[in-house]
């Protein structure tokens, strides 16, 4: 008992600054989390304490693991089996992390949502384990911190997503619960495999051990993305099929409607259906590539854009109801998978056709930044496309005689002839109408 007391004192005296600072950061985070979600930089600042808590936990785990040599030295001064020393230190620190996670989680559970308790505790423990596992292999705390960063970021992003969404069970509609568990457990399982590899391969040269560890870590991280991308559909997952989103395009008087119809037989597929209710005509086309409906460009024709995942071009096509044929208009160069990107976040996807059918505008999620989009202007008469806005997200598009208007936070107008972008100021004046 005396040994346990002394060990306890030793661990506490070594680890107290970490727990104190982490607890401080966790408490500091509470005022930020309680108000409604804030905009701008304050929303960003609110995330930092959590980042710091997890970072502190990772560092503590890394230091603990890197101190294993010193643990065995210390074991000489305690009447305890040398092999049990690291296990004791690890167990005690894990318990500390668990308690801190429970304390922080309880705050949020009371104040916001009981569903948040589990992810908070889970997150704390994972952050600690990541630091420990990596540093145990590399044998140096700083290497553990560096190697742990991508893992930490991955968990941090997932975790913040949980916290930001009040209904935490509704975070990722695109994945089933099983798939979400797979996404979380993949990196963790690979980390544990990496430790096993380390334990089993003590006689192997250091370079092989580090290489094996790095391989497991990369596989662990990749597993989450692979599962996320495959959507458990296996390697034959049809990205094009799942990129088809249900759309409906109707003329203002409701007489002409184009929509995607999901059909189950002979196997799941989509049909594009063009109905003229006034003239009682109908045309159907089976669709295998993702299309977006641009708009009507005549009494019985509709413009569409489409791209298969592997293609580096976007195709503009016209579907004439009379001939029931998709005829190509032109195609333009665009990055691969532009149509498929941001599948879960359709807020940034906007399409608009000028009423005279001369120009069209497309907004897709951007490769630069998150929650941002690129705006393309299509000159359908001259068969030309150009990217006019990059890394901005408009909430709406509108047309004036010579300009495309984009509803970005600072609204902009794009010249239809030159593609030049200039501000479109909204000046508010309190005048009577």
């Amino acid at each position, binding site marked *: 008992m005396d040994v346990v007391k002394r060990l306890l004192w030793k661990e506490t005296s070594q680890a107290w600054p970490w727990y104190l*600072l982490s607890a401080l*950061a966790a408490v500091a985070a509470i*005022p*930020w989390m309680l108000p409604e979600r*804030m*905009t*701008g930089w*304050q929303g*960003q*600042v609110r*995330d*930092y*304490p959590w980042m710091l808590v997890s*970072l*502190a936990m990772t*560092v503590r785990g*890394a230091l603990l693991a890197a101190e294993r040599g010193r643990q065995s030295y210390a074991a000489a001064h305690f009447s305890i089996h040398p092999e049990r020393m690291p296990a004791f230190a690890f167990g005690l620190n894990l318990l500390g992390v668990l308690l801190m996670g429970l304390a922080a989680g309880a705050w949020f559970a009371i104040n916001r949502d009981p569903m948040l308790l589990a992810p908070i505790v889970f997150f704390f423990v994972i952050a600690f384990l990541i630091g420990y596992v990596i540093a145990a292999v590399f044998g140096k*705390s*700083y290497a553990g*911190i*560096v190697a742990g960063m991508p893992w930490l970021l991955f968990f941090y992003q997932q975790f*913040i997503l949980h916290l930001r969404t009040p209904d935490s069970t509704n975070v990722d509609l695109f994945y089933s619960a099983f798939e979400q568990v797979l996404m979380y457990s993949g990196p963790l399982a690979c980390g544990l495999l990496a430790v096993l590899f380390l334990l089993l391969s003590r006689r192997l040269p250091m370079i092989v051990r580090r290489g094996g560890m790095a391989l497991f870590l990369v596989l662990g991280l990749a597993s989450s993305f692979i599962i996320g991308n495959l959507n458990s559909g296996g390697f034959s997952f049809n990205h094009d099929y799942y990129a088809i989103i249900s759309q*409906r395009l109707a003329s*203002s*008087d*409701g*007489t002409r*409607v184009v929509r995607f119809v999901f059909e189950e037989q002979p196997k799941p597929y989509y049909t594009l259906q063009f*109905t003229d*209710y*006034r003239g*009682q005509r109908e045309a159907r086309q089976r669709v295998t590539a993702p299309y977006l409906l641009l708009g009507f460009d005549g009494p019985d024709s509709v413009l569409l854009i489409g791209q298969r995942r592997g293609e580096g071009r976007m195709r503009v096509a016209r579907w004439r109801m009379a001939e029931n044929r998709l005829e190509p208009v032109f195609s333009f160069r*665009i*990055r691969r998978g532009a149509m498929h990107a941001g599948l879960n976040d359709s807020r940034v996807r906007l399409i608009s056709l000028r*009423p005279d059918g001369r120009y069209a505008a497309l907004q897709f999620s*951007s*490769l*630069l*930044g*998150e*929650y*941002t989009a690129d705006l393309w202007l299509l000159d359908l008469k001259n068969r030309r496309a150009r990217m006019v806005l*990059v*890394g*901005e997200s408009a909430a*709406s598009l509108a047309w*004036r005689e010579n300009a495309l208007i984009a*509803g*970005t*936070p*600072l*609204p902009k107008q794009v010249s239809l002839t030159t593609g030049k972008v200039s501000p479109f*100021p*909204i*000046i*508010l*004046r*309190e*005048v009577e*109408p």
Partner: protein
Amino acid sequence: MRRLLWKEWQERRLWIALWVATGAALTALGKGQGVCNIAWMDSNWGMLIPLAALLAGLGGFGSELHRGRAAFLYSRAVTWKQILGAKLLLGLAAIIVSVIASAAAGRLLLPAEYHQLITPHSLLSGALVMAGFTAGAYLLGLAFSTVLPGVAGGLLVAVGWMAFISLLPLSGIKEPVFSIILTLLAPLAAGLLIARFGVTLHAMARLRRFALVALAGLAAGVLLDFTPYAAELYKKLNAPGNTPAEERFYNVNFSPDARYASAERLFGNTTIPCLVRLSDGWFSFTDEDFSGESYWLANNLLLTNKRGFTSEGKSARPELLLRQWHGDELQTYKIDHSGNLSNEYTALSPDSRYLLLWGYDELKLIDLATGQARTLAQADRIKLRILSRRNPGKQYGFRQCWWQSNDEIGYLDPYTGERVLAPLSALDSLD
């Protein structure tokens, strides 16, 4: 000096490599603040490159603080300025290399359509922004590194400091100017003072001095922020024209011809929805949330699905708001409904006099001249549900309505899906 630089390089090359690699990799991925990434402010990845720079800085004085190495170093023919200069020079070199690596990665790895962004001007401005942020983070890291030994020691000080400043909002300052500036300057000053006078002191003495200077600076900032001068300065800095953020709008929803707009304007930390006539800037505040629930129809008709709560916290009766501009005059009509009407299913009569709205079990007609709404047809919900259960693959309810002519509407029968044509005069109101 050359030897000092060599020492710094030997000690921190891994951190510098991490910094450069992070900058290049994130630019190639389009995340964070690369030299051709203009949208990094919205990204959580934006903190990664400064974080790498911070880590590189945190190793700055770490080695000198181990086991009296600082005393040994000062016993050689070097001054404190040279030691500090070597650390700063290494940071400067890392900034330059990371900016170049980031630009090269952007040019080589980003898709072709983004290459137009890489112009001399964008390179210069991107490089300045990236250099500014990373230099700030590196200098802060260097300042934190003067307190406790090792990278982990520096990190501990940084974590403590950041946890402390995250309490700043609790001080109740509404218009922070000095507290933000001094939050950054105070640790720099404390670090500089320790680098000059205190590297050979005991760790606890360094920690006390650092905390004293840094916290004194922060406290001074907080106190200065309560003076009227700070409020004046805040207003000056945030005056329209100085900060474009003042003119920001969210969910700007233009009418199809861009003559009107519904938008949420940012006032401080809150957004207030308003309707704007763009020709003269006349606007009207509203109490609806326009995000995702507002659609412009033809003829500048704005249809808003209003959702709200009663004073008891229950869902209020659903209401559609129809707004229409007649020249300069804005008219608002409220349309009560059973809950299944949406602003997506509408049909405007060819003469623009009437609007048809339909949902699962309801078909309504709105006279746009008077705003009067009447229910033209209703379906029995229970019957529709029974039919849906019996024939799971089939759809029931009002699915499509249209104008056959100015006086005649058509719709698909909610039970059978058959086409029904009905003259307006033959349809009685069910209200």
